[in-house]
């Protein structure tokens, strides 16, 4: 299975050096949303705002950027394409 890497970017990058085996881009997107959810869960109040300015960058094993998801987006609004709320950009 291909390896996908899930980094966080703001003024600097927090790198996912390990990567995760996933069957396809759709699975990578779901995994990214899950991780974003786990990172931002219970993040309310002053301390929580730290993640809001970050973006998740998903790259494939060749270093190609596959997905970009701002963490300020509500990860539970998983409307996929076309619901207007989905601000994650598929970068090809």
């Amino acid at each position, binding site marked *: 299975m291909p390896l996908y890497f899930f980094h*966080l970017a703001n003024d600097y990058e927090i790198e996912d050096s390990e990567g995760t085996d996933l069957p396809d881009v759709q699975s990578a997107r779901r*995994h990214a949303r899950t991780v974003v959810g*786990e990172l931002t869960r*219970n*993040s309310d109040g002053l301390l929580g705002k730290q993640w809001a300015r970050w973006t998740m960058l998903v790259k494939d094993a060749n270093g190609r950027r596959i997905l970009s998801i701002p963490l300020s987006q509500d990860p539970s609004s998983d409307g996929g394409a076309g619901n207007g709320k989905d601000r994650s950009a598929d970068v090809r």
Partner: protein
Amino acid sequence: MTTLSIANRGNNRLLAALPQSIYAVLQPHLKEVTFKQRKVLFEPGDALDRVYFPQSGMVSLLIITTEGAGIEAATIGREGAVGLQRGLGKRRAFTRANVQVGGTFSVIEADRFEKAVREHDVLRNTITAYTEVLLAEAQQIVACNALHTADARLARWLLQTRDRIESPMLPLTQEFLAQMLGVRRTTVTLVAGSLQAAGLIEYRRGRIEILDAARLEDAACECYGVMQHQHLPGTIGIDLHAPA
């Protein structure tokens, strides 16, 4: 009769807190055993046949779901014991006990331990008091998992591990931490990365080093402070987390 001074009792605090006469009853039956990281001491449903007193290692108890996923219910180091409830009668485990940090353990056969408990009320009281502490910690973990952020929980977990093994060098894998915290391994990598970027820890494969404990405490949730101050009420009255 040989006098066994407290200094000879090793590092386990529960054993060290026992009255001399009680410790003398257990001591001939305690064996020193070394277990490596990842060793499974028991699975849910197993009959508990031994009681383990950590001297230098650390054990996590995990609830295992039917899909095989696990999440931490409790973690026990030299401040406690695993399988202590076996002293109250034949019991089956409802968690999996995983050695998280390898080390030495004082181990006693459950039947021997149960016999000693039957004959000595002090031992029964110790088990009851310790079980209350463990329950309070487990309840705190429930609240923590529900209410606190992944980074605050990871910081707490790292500090508790340091307290249990008494070293800032934590031989923990991210897979283990993911299981403890009930999150994806990716999430652990990213949270650990942010703690590292802030200069609080340094992590490599299989190892995390605490660089700035004071700031890591600031980053941890309040549960760390609460759980640090648990101590045995009543008869025994020892602070399980006090520095030696």
